């Protein structure tokens, strides 16, 4: 395919490919490598962020777990403190006094008036004290001993085990002590209350409970009287968020840029929100950006987890004050003792921020590389367009000129030589080739014209020969007719031999006629022999002339060599004379006034020397021309010599045939003479005469045959001459055609 393109295009394609292929390869490799790099970076950052989220979630969980453990232990010791306080004051027992209570069910808020024996600590009644400034035994003491904890004393209301708060340090919202409410043994849902059930079974209950306004870790233990009957319950509670530190720790957790940890309970209430802004808000019915109840989803997922298990959820989320929805990944854990749904979330785009940087710079790099490739491609195309033009133009020019020469046959054109490199040399060689062709065509042209002239000459001569041969043929024909006549006459003689006997005189006349005609015939054969000879001689003369011409030409060539030598001598002398004249002029000049006459002479001598030098140059040129012409002439004369030889051959055959005829005629003549002689005895010898006449008739038949062959030969001669004319005609035609062919080529400006 590349072969068919022109040189310029080829150079352009190769050059551009050389510069572009490496660039394209680099670009492609770069793009592929970048993709791989980005993928690895993405995977890694995803994995890292997952791990980090996991760790953070676990951390929150562990904090809560530890705190819980600690709280439970603390609580147990506080409970012991409370029991110790109670027993120090003389234990708890029921007195004989009756106290009236309007008891309130803590769930149903149903008020039931009850009459109960007063509960005593030692000898002191707890009193129905709601005021904070009045001292209440045990609970106030416990609070003073253990800062920040709540404690309550319950009194068993009835056999079934409803527990009534009779003394407490828990403060209601209105600032009074929270007494008068009771925990029913049966919950509103119909199930036995777990706290009551445990306490009645004689065990201590620990667990999470909402007390008045916050979540507490609580412990309930039974109060026994002297008869080991359960008469009440002692309660101690610590708020779960006993230390702000725990809360702060969770608030402080940061993942990536804006990711944070949060805690919900299973009802969808915010316990710990981002920066604590939305604490206490119920977001159970919150929807994510695509309209799903994602919190319900999240809580459902989390509560199904076992302790220490981690699950993940992702949802589109829009923060307050943000315009864009972003995908958020969250890790979930569930801390059952506190009903904590722990979540740690981070935005996916932040996780991938680093990767995005890499991605951006990679795409920028790819863009730059692509631009560079395109620019380089354009630049290389541009450069190679000019370079290839410079290289290819001289070759294209040369080929166009050669094509033009071939098409127009114009040898005056030349290929322009623009440089000295290989192309310039090629152009030079082409020029010299064209020059050679031009010279060759000039020579051929000249020779063709000469050949045509000579062929015309030969043709003329051959035509003359043919005419002569034609005449000869005519004569042979007339001779034949005469012989035929003679044969007829001889027949008549034989036929009328008897009449001849009678008319001997007329016979004699007849014989005379015969003799006459014989003589005529003899004459005509002689003439034709003569003509044949003439043809031969003419041809021989021609040959001789040709030979002489050749000789003369050789002489010319020899003498021109001699002349050239002589002229060299003359030139030499002229040069020396010139020099002599110059030196003479110098001498004359130096002689000053005295040398003036001599200077004139020297000048003249110098002019003479120059003139003779010029003449010598002229002569040399002429001699060179004549030598060239002589050479050409020699070749042409050779051609005409061959043509003449052919003519001579034909003429020779002709003459020989005629000589044969002549011989036969001579024999006939002598026979007729004898007839004439014997005519006188014809009367006496009529029989003999008859015989002789019949013989005569036979001979005349022979003669007819001979003359016919002579006519044939003559015809052949004519044919031969015709052939020569044809050959020369053809030669002439060919040389003319050659001349025309040569003339088509323009070789002279």
């Amino acid at each position, binding site marked *: 395919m590349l072969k068919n393109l022109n040189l310029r295009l080829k150079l352009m394609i190769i050059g551009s490919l050389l510069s572009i292929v490496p660039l394209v390869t680099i670009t492609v490799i770069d793009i592929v490598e970048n993709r791989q790099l980005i993928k690895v970076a993405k995977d890694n950052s995803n994995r890292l962020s997952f791990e980090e989220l996991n760790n953070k979630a676990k951390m929150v969980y562990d904090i809560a777990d530890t705190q819980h453990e600690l709280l439970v232990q603390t609580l147990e010791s506080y409970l012991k403190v409370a029991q110790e306080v109670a027993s120090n004051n003389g234990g708890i027992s029921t007195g004989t006094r009756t106290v009236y209570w309007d008891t309130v069910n803590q769930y149903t808020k149903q008020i039931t008036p009850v009459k109960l024996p007063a509960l005593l600590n030692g000898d002191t009644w707890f009193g129905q004290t709601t005021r904070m400034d009045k001292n209440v035994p045990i609970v106030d003491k416990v609070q003073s001993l253990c800062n920040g904890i709540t404690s309550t004393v319950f009194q068993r209301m009835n056999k079934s085990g409803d527990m009534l708060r009779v003394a407490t340090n828990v403060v209601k919202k209105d600032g009074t002590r929270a007494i008068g409410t009771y925990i029913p043994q049966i919950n509103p849902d119909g199930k036995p209350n777990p706290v009551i059930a445990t306490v009645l079974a004689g065990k201590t209950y620990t667990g999470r409970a909402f007390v008045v306004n916050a979540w507490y870790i609580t412990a309930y233990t039974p109060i026994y009287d002297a008869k080991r009957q359960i008469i009440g319950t002692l309660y101690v509670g610590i708020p779960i968020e006993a230390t702000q530190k725990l809360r702060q720790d969770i608030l402080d957790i940061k993942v990536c840029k804006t990711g944070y940890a949060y805690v919900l309970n299973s009802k969808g209430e915010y316990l710990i929100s981002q920066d604590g802004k939305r604490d206490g808000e119920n977001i159970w019915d919150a929807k994510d950006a695509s309209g799903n109840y994602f919190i319900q989803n999240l809580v459902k997922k989390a509560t199904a987890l076992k302790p220490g298990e981690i699950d993940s959820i992702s949802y589109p989320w829009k923060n307050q004050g943000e315009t864009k929805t972003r995908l958020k990944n969250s890790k979930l854990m569930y801390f059952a003792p506190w009903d904590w749904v722990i979540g740690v979330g981070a935005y996916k785009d932040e996780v991938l921020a680093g990767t995005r940087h890499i991605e951006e710079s990679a795409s920028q790099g790819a863009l730059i590389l692509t631009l560079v490739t395109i620019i380089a491609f354009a630049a290389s195309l541009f450069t190679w367009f000019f370079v290839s033009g410079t290289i290819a133009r001289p070759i294209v020019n040369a080929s166009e000129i050669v094509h033009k020469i071939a098409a127009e046959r114009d040898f005056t054109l030349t290929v322009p030589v623009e440089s000295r490199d290989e192309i310039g040399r090629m152009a030079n060689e082409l020029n010299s080739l064209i020059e050679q062709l031009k010279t060759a065509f000039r020579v051929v042209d000249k020779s063709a014209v000469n050949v045509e002239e000579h062929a015309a000459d030969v043709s003329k001569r051959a035509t003359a020969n043919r005419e002569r041969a034609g005449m000869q043929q005519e004569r042979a024909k007339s001779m034949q007719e005469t012989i035929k006549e003679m044969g007829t006459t001889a027949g008549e003689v034989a036929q009328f031999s008897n009449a001849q006997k009678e008319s001997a005189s007329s016979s004699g006349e007849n014989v005379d006629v015969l003799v006459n005609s014989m003589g005529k015939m003899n004459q005509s054969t002689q003439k034709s022999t003569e003509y044949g000879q003439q043809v031969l001689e003419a041809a021989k003369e021609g040959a001789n002339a040709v030979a002489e011409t050749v000789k003369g030409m050789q002489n010319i060539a020899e003498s021109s060599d001699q002349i050239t030598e002589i002229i060299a001598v003359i030139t030499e002398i002229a*040069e020396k004379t010139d*020099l002599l004249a*110059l*030196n003479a*002029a*110098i001498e004359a*000049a*130096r002689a000053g006034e005295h040398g003036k006459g001599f200077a004139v002479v*020297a*000048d003249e001598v*110098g002019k003479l020397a120059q003139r003779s030098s010029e003449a010598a140059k002229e002569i040399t040129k002429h001699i060179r021309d004549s030598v060239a012409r002589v050479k050409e002439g020699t070749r042409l004369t050779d051609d005409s010599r061959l043509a003449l030889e052919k003519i001579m051959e034909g003429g020779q055959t002709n003459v020989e045939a005629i000589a044969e005829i002549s011989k036969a005629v001579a024999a006939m003549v002598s026979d007729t003479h004898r007839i004439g002689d014997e005519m006188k005895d014809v009367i006496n010898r009529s029989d003999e005469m008859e015989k002789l006449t019949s013989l005569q008739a036979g001979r005349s038949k022979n003669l007819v045959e001979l003359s016919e062959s002579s006519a044939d030969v003559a015809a052949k001669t004519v044919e031969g001459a015709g052939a020569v004319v044809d050959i020369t005609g053809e030669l002439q035609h060919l040389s003319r055609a050659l001349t025309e062919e040569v003339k088509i080529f323009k070789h002279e400006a």
Partner: protein
Amino acid sequence: MKKQQLSSVSNQAEKNKILQLVGFIIGKDRFALDILMVQEIIRSPVITNLPNSPVFIEGVINLRGNIIPVIELRKKLNLPDSKDKKTADSRIIIVNVDNRVTGFIVDSVSEILKIQAGTIEQPPDIVTAGMDSQYIEGVCDIQGDLVILLDFSKILRVDEIKKLKTISKTTGNEGSLKAESQRSKARERLQCPPCINDC
């Protein structure tokens, strides 16, 4: 000498004075020099190369027993080389400048020119501006052709004349050929080593 003549162009008689010049050709260009400086014109004989000679000196020739240094004028004038260097027309002009005989090779000697001193024009300033071209004495129009007149007494620079003198000393200028050439050979042998050291 000629310069003085040319400078006093105010004189009408000087202007009309006929000068005889020897015209010669190098390449396609025509040059001329005053006939009185020319001692003789000879056909180029065999030129003997001189070892260790300056570039512009072609060699020495033996002119009727005198050894004369020969200078290729083409090289000296920085004219372009022609293809056919040695032709039958090539001549040596023997010039006598301040009693120093030197041969100059030219392509051919054309004729003796007779011109009026007034027809000689000063060369353009731009030509004579360089130090080297001070030997161009004038330009003259002869039948349509420009002929450049050269002053051979200025054609060689001082250092070149010094080198030529060395050669003259080495080869000698008078005396019988045989004795002189033998002597000169002996001198060459003696003087060559220091010369090589100089070079």
